[in-house]
């Protein structure tokens, strides 16, 4: 029996090693016993932008925290290039839905924070932080405090801080939810190019959102969560050229497919 388990684990790891990030057979319950997920499997390939969609309250943000090692699943494992993730690591950086900056630090200092913890010299840290800010279009704003910035600029600072940590994977929890539509649209258009530019070591992105147009615009692969407890009810591959046109027929066909998956959830009787 034990030998079977070891063999299974070895196979899982070998399979997971083919992916940047891989979640295998994830079950998770809240402390009050409410079962959130059952047998969730998600794979993120090389340079792949993966989106997870689902109705409000289904547990998308919780899943993202499991992928980042912030929460421990009841069953199943998360692998980064085949290596199990048991705690948060700078290799997988979480971008929060509520934009997180530190009000007592300037934009530059906010970004330098993720470099200082890597024992980089001050000069190198500043240089790298300036590069990261430039990458997100904030050159010239290095000395501003978060309070002096718009929501969109603050989110760019948070993304620059994340990029400066040289992560392999980005986990983005509805990163545009607190921005006005125009700012969100501008950042959405920039984000793919920023993330997968040759200057970043990034190998994969997982975006959580309930905005279906947004995910079709950005993602290569879309996982649809539904039901209680949540399971992956569908996976949609988006093979449209970039930049994508939300008014095109193909775009709308994909949107329709997503809507079909998101019919009212089935509640599993326990």
């Amino acid at each position: 029996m034990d030998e079977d388990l070891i063999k299974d684990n070895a196979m899982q790891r070998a399979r997971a090693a083919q992916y940047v990030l891989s979640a295998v057979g994830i079950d998770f319950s809240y402390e009050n016993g409410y079962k959130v997920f059952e047998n969730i499997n998600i794979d993120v390939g090389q340079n792949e932008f993966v989106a997870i969609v689902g109705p409000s309250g289904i547990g998308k943000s919780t899943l993202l925290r499991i992928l980042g090692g912030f929460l421990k699943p009841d069953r199943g494992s998360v692998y980064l290039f085949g290596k199990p993730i048991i705690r948060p690591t700078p290799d997988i950086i979480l971008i929060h839905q509520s934009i997180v900056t530190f009000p007592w630090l300037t934009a530059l200092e906010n970004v330098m924070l993720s470099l200082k913890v890597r024992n980089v010299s001050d000069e190198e840290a500043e240089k790298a932080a300036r590069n990261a800010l430039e990458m997100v279009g904030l050159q010239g704003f290095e000395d501003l405090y978060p309070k002096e910035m718009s929501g969109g600029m603050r989110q760019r600072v948070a993304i620059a801080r994340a990029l400066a940590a040289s992560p392999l994977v980005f986990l983005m929890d509805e990163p545009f939810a607190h921005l006005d539509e125009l700012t969100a649209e501008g950042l959405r258009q920039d984000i793919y190019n920023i993330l997968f530019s040759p200057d970043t070591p990034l190998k994969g992105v997982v975006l959580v959102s309930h905005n279906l147009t947004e995910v079709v615009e950005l993602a290569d692969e879309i996982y649809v969560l539904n039901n209680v407890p949540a399971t992956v009810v569908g996976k949609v591959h988006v093979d449209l050229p970039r930049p994508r046109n939300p008014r095109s027929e193909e775009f709308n066909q994909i949107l329709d497919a997503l809507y079909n998956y998101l019919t009212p959830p089935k509640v599993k009787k326990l």
Partner: protein
Amino acid sequence: MNEILLITLATLATAGRVLGLILISIFTGWFLAYAAIKGKIFENIYISLIEVFESVPVISFFPIVLIIFVTRIGGPLGVEMAADFLVFTAVVWNIWIGEYQAFKTVPREMLEVAENYQMSFLTKMRRIFIPFSYPRIAANLFPSVSDGFFYITVSEVFSVGIHTYQTFGIGTVLDSLVASGQTRLIYIDLAILAVVIILIIIGLREFSRYAVSKYTVDTDAPIIRRGRLNVKQTTRLLSVVARNPLSRLAGYYRSRAISRPPEVFEKHEIRKEKISRYTSIAIGVIILGLILYSSVDLIISVPHSEWGRLFSITPRIVLYLLYDYLRVGVILAISFVIAIFLGYYLAMHSRAEGIGVPIIQALSAYPPPIYLPFIFAASFTAIHSVLGAFTDEFYVLSLGFVSTFYYIFYSFWMGVKALPAEYFEVMKNLNMGYFSRMRSIILPGTFPYLISGISSTINSAWGGLMIGEYWPDIVAGRSLEVHFGLMKFIDVQTNTGNIALAGWGSFIFGIVVAIYSILFTRRMMDLARKRYVAEEGVFAA
């Protein structure tokens, strides 16, 4: 058996005195806070006075107590009023300022609903303002109870010259037990006091939990139904108590304009507004007038020669004050270091927090002046063999430390608990080490809490110094006494019946403390509000 009954009654009398005065503070504070938010002039006078009085330690009121209550009123009533006044000044300020802050930060939408339904004054108070102030009151009750109990030994029994004044309570009973050397009863006395304090702390924790869960806007804490007791959860909820006051404090000075255009006001409404404004101005002017009258009356009543003597001794008083500031600095430094390490550890480990915080709460409410003589008696020889001439200094600093440490500890602990959860995720995500977390995130993020804690620690350290610097016969045949110190100077002058010198010392001390408060604390708080409000770092439009 009769003695145990007497001790129990005395403990209940003391507890009743402290709790009763807290209730009076709460009740009067509601009306004063309402008057303050309704009238700018009254608000300015009221808040300025509270800020000054809050920063002036209770000891500064002692000569006033002697002059007004003991000398002018006299008799058992005068002594009882003196004790009540001292405890009142220990508990009232933070409750009044807390209620004012709560009233000032009632959400505009709630006020608009009240206007929309044309609620009367009493309905507004009952349905909106008073319920909204409960969480803030709950947060302020712990330090108020601790402060109230701290001063029972000096407020229930005190000597002026050859006269000793006392009123019924645990302080008086303990004093007579110590004098007659009844060790067994002393231990029973201490144990009964401990039981009563623990019961009060449990009650306060329950009230906090209830107040936060039911009366805090936008809390995720489940609403507690009456009658359910769950001590275990209270610690977590206290953090919510802490979270909201500070985040609201950030909006403390934000103006809240009424959006309603003036033309929709009826004539009688305008008249009512005017009456309310003029009443507020009148109350403010009366308070100022009373202060001015008492000051002029006092200045005139003191002979010129006496003024000359008082001015000539002033440089010595200032020097003594410097000695005391040095002691306060040492107490603060030790408290700060312990608070940072212990507070962070407890905030991060919920199991340890569940045990550690209630213990610290109970210990902080248990008055150190009650038990210090026993610790002194048990440890003096050992400590003296190590510290020699510095032994008394050690006990004075220790008394200062135990009487004030919990302020900075609570402030820091609450500050850590109130940091946005996202900050902890970022710290974990970046694998930040302990000192890196402290330097870059935790200390700046808790800066407003630390300033508030440091300020309270400094203010309360004076109470410990006042009791410790001159304590004749702390144990039979031995006194606790420092060489130099302003608190000792005031104590000695009071003890020898030289009220004018004691009053002058307290006056100089009050002025210095008030200036310090304005120059240091206020500036630091302004800086904290401008840059170090952690909640503002999480943008959720």
